[in-house]
């Protein structure tokens, strides 16, 4: 049974695929330049670690035109909880707003830090959910649409994955 949490943007449970496509057709360069600006951190000085990690993930993913289009086409809020840290991601026309705390949302995902990091680094959602390490609530289709936006991509600029020294 889906959770009936009220969205901050009342029309936003399901994003419009059409909007995704329209945005994807926009010229990439101006949008690429704006990718980091499209992630709006509320009260950064007080933001918790989870919110800062989310900002990094979103900013990296929004450089990808298709993912950027997807994010800008969504009108919904997601509540993410890792351990006792809460953030709410609100997808709006001007970007993705991240605020600390649990606000009204269309969907929720929670778990311990390691399990959630596993999800965003590609371990998949189903296994951790079945094992009870990750819990979801609200609109599952929305979560499926959002998951690629918070999934870690391979970063070309990273040092090689060798041993620390």
């Amino acid at each position, binding site marked *: 049974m889906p959770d009936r949490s009220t969205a901050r943007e009342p029309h936003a449970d399901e994003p419009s695929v059409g909007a995704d496509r329209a945005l994807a057709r926009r010229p990439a360069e101006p949008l690429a330049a704006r990718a980091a600006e499209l992630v709006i951190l509320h009260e950064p000085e007080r933001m918790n670690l989870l919110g800062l990690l989310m900002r990094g993930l979103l900013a990296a993913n929004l450089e990808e035109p298709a993912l950027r289009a997807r994010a800008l086409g969504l009108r919904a809020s997601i509540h993410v909880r890792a351990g006792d840290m809460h953030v709410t991601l609100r997808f709006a026309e001007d970007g993705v707003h991240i605020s600390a705390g649990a606000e009204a949302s269309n969907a929720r995902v929670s778990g311990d*830090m390691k399990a959630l990091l596993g999800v965003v680094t590609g371990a998949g959602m189903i296994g951790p959910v079945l094992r009870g390490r990750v819990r979801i609530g609200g609109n599952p289709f929305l979560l499926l649409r959002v998951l690629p936006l918070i999934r870690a991509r391979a970063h070309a600029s990273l040092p090689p994955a060798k041993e620390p*020294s």
Partner: protein
Amino acid sequence: MKAALAAIVGADNVLDAAPDLAPYREDYCEADPVDPSLVVLATKTEEVQAIVRLCAERQTPITPRVAGSNVGGLALPAPGGLVLDLTRMNRIVSVDEADMYAVIEPGVTQADLKRHLVEHDIPLTFGFSLAPPDTSVLANCLLGGLTNRSLKYGDQSQWVSGLEVVLSDGSLVRTGSWALSDSAFGLVPFPDVSGLFLGWQATTGITTRMAFQLWPRHPLNKRLFVLTYSAHGTFEAVRRLCRTELCDDIGGLSWPSAKMMMGVKHPYPEPASGEPTFFLYVDLTAGSEAEMSLKERTLEQTLADVRHLGERIEEPLDVATLLRVNPALGAFAEFPVELEFLTNHGGGGLTWIGTYGPLSRFEDGIAAGTEIMVRHGFPPLIVTRPMRGGHYGVLRFVAIFDKKDAAEIERVKKLNLELLEMVTAKGFVMYKTPPWAWEKLRGRIDPGLLALMERTKRMLDPLGIMNPGKLGY
């Protein structure tokens, strides 16, 4: 003086123009800038000897310097004094793979030595401080700095196996086995006089070469992060892990470090609700997968034991996972590292009260230090590490500030003074002790030690030209 120096090193290696002198008048910390009269760049020991003789003749103060990243004003000259820039003495003289030591000059940096070992496929390593890659390895050894091998092997002065030092009359001395043998294998068995130069902040001589121990580089390495939620849980885990003798390093950073690394310049001084308060990074090395697996299991079991005490501790996270989530955390993926949030934050100022002290008192020190930092309006940026098997540890309170803001500099000075009083009262001892702190501590140090130091100093530097202003001289 300039002409005499030019006769030793060539005119191009003597600087006296204001723009050339500017980089030498300050370091990261809040110490007042001091203008040197001249800067001279040496390339070999014989030049250093000649320069020191000249300074002795003219009674000119001389201060050696490499990167100047000690964060205590230790490489700032005496007013009107001369700075001896040793960056060009950067030869890795030898690496003895069989007996695991290297002989290096003062200008050899962390990055240089690492590159050398890797490029020559030498299966040895050393330790890296959290200072920038261009930091002098020799200087960190002489000043008793710490590295990511300090849990196993202690502070870096304990790795020294021989010194070559220019004394204040220009003469040269070799300490350790090097005094007789062609192998600088250790400081034994002759009377060890290396201590006349270790920790003395170049007030007794200028070290031109150093032999120091390297350590095996194991084929398998892992860095794991452990998020914790209380100081007691953190250091109970640290103390227990030390006694397993399985970890190569256990660094502990308070919550603001991760935030600053991820771009928050001035985190609110209190942690956000529900977030971890400490991040341990644990280095494990092994020669085989089976050994690594055993170490990981032991780590996990040790953490589980602390959880059973009611402490909340997350499961270890591999650094590679964190890197994928946020590349900004890459600063901790591989050493040496440029911690830009400390050294390149716009304001230019970096300062700390760095101490060595008993691990059993860390929770107490952290609680008191956190209260002081928050009260002064600074996020409680704290760096910790158990040293030498856990017999002691480093507890360091770090602040960044704007060097152009006089009021902030005053605030930092008050902060550091209060932190110094607190840590000293709790039994911690400040390392790389800056001149201002030495003056504050002088009245509490054993008078017998001070008298012996005074006699030693007079014997080794009767003219008082060697790095004046440090250690009260």
